[in-house]
């Protein structure tokens, strides 16, 4: 249980970092932390204490095995995270070229 709570704390740190930090690069790091926390959470969901990898073979007798489904999901989720991060970095670089700053407070050309 404590592992799940640590995982949610990590997630909250990521969300905090993404929403509150002023620097665009720190926001991107926050997104990364958030993604990792989620991935960890999914892996924990599938984990069983003292179990083996779910590989079927004649010579191996498996009594209990970890749930392989979350691991497959996380592979997909990591790829999605990579895509989002790459796009975010690309946009941040372009923003730096236009505004000459990473500080979100100075990037305010949109009217309210």
């Amino acid at each position, binding site marked *: 249980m404590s592992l799940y709570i640590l995982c949610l704390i990590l*997630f909250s740190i*990521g*969300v905090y970092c*993404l*929403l509150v930090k002023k620097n*665009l690069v720190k*926001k991107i790091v926050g*997104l990364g932390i*958030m*993604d990792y926390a*989620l991935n960890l*959470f*999914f892996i924990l*969901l599938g984990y069983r204490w003292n179990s083996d990898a779910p590989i079927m073979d004649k010579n191996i007798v498996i009594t209990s095995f970890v*749930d392989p*489904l*979350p691991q497959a*999901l996380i592979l*997909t*989720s990591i790829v*999605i995270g990579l*895509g*989002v991060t790459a*796009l*975010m970095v690309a*946009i*941040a670089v*372009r*923003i730096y070229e*236009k*505004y000459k700053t990473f500080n979100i407070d100075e*990037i*305010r*050309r*949109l*009217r309210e």
Partner: protein
Amino acid sequence: MLPIFVIIPLGSAFLVPLVSRIRLSIGRVLSLCSGAALLFFSVSSIWWLKGGVKMYAVGGWRPPFGICMALDGLTVLMLVVVNIIGFASLLYSLDYAKRYTSESLYYTLFCLLLAGLNGVAISGDLFNLFVFLEITSIASYALVAFGVEAEELEASFKYLVLGAVASALILLGIGMFLGAVSTLNMADISRSLVISVSPKLVLYSAALFMAGFSIKAGFVPFHAWLPDAHPSAPAPMSAMLSGVVIKTIGIYALLRVIFSIIGFNAAFSEIFIWMGILSMAIGVLLAIGQWDFKRLLAYHSVSQVGYVIFGIGLGTPLGIIGGLFHLFNHSLFKSLLFLNAGSIEYSTGYRQLDKLDGLDEAMPVTSRTSLVASLSIAGIPPFCGFWSKLIIIIAAIQAHRYAGAVTCILVSVVTLASFLKVQKYAFIRKLKGAAQGAKEAPLFMKLSMLLLAFLCIMAGLFFIPVLNALIKPAAEALLAGKDYANLILGAP
């Protein structure tokens, strides 16, 4: 036949950049053809549904184990909406996208967006839905920033940050379900949630889904990104964002999770109704003071989406029909208005209403079609917006939600005032201003606007056939609620 809705756009997204190296026009024609094919198949899916709910098991693995795609009434409605607007926007892009240096990438992203939207609508698996939702989101972040001007990049970054938080919340909600019932098939989750899952966990994941999808849909406490992102995008993309993206990855996905998986009840009804009233009122109040045409339209999107969720939140059959019909109508007239704004910007270079004048003579097609759309959004009979708003108001009175009904009427009046302002400043008022010498938009842009205006008028005049063919099956799919599980698992 169901995977065709994902295969066509995904395939053309792959092929467009390749064939564009030979000749750019082949890429354009290819993406337009895939849009047309999707439109054809989505309209014919109305007839496929006549034999009952359809299910396709990917790779031959039957539902509780494999990923499945499902077609019910709500899915058909979303497919039709997405592909009508998708085709019109692609047609419009043929002229509009010529201003961009890497036009082939624009079409690639557009096809990816269509693949994501169709995938969200047709998926029967919760994680698969999430993947398609992310494809849609990434394509729309990139398209919002496509002009790479300072404002566009800023809007896209803002959208990206909030979109990423929303996606994370949705994924966390999916994780909660996975941990509780060890399955991801929506029908199977729905069936398993009845047995042996603590109500607290269901409530917690419902809250996560509600927050995540509400950010994607732009309901009022979560709307901060929308008025920046929608106006900054290229005009056809704004039409897609306001017309279908917020509805598919926001409203449709939310309804699917709440109605089909968790089960609709009085608490959700209360939340939907108040979120709807807030969105309607605050959206329109923010819109009335705007002078930027596209920004004004974006605030009106917040307000009109409020009608949809309010109608559905009433929970009565009439309310759900009204809400879904308004979803259909709003996608038609709001896309049309964004295309109008795009063609004004195309020929005059301005979006500020106070800098425009007397465009009625110079741009007759844009002017007349925008009049149709303005009257529709304001709810003037016999245009389509009138009927859906009327149904919602009648349903609200029947459900004894008088505050909501009065808000609907007042918001409608303010909307009318706001669009009279648009008509007056942009088209009727005459000054010797900056907009002198404006020309009418090119052929394909005109065709696309005429197509949508025609559909707006038709949906208004023949609203009963539209209700019978499209909206009623969708409302029945929502009203079936948790019967969704039996329908899908028992489908051939």
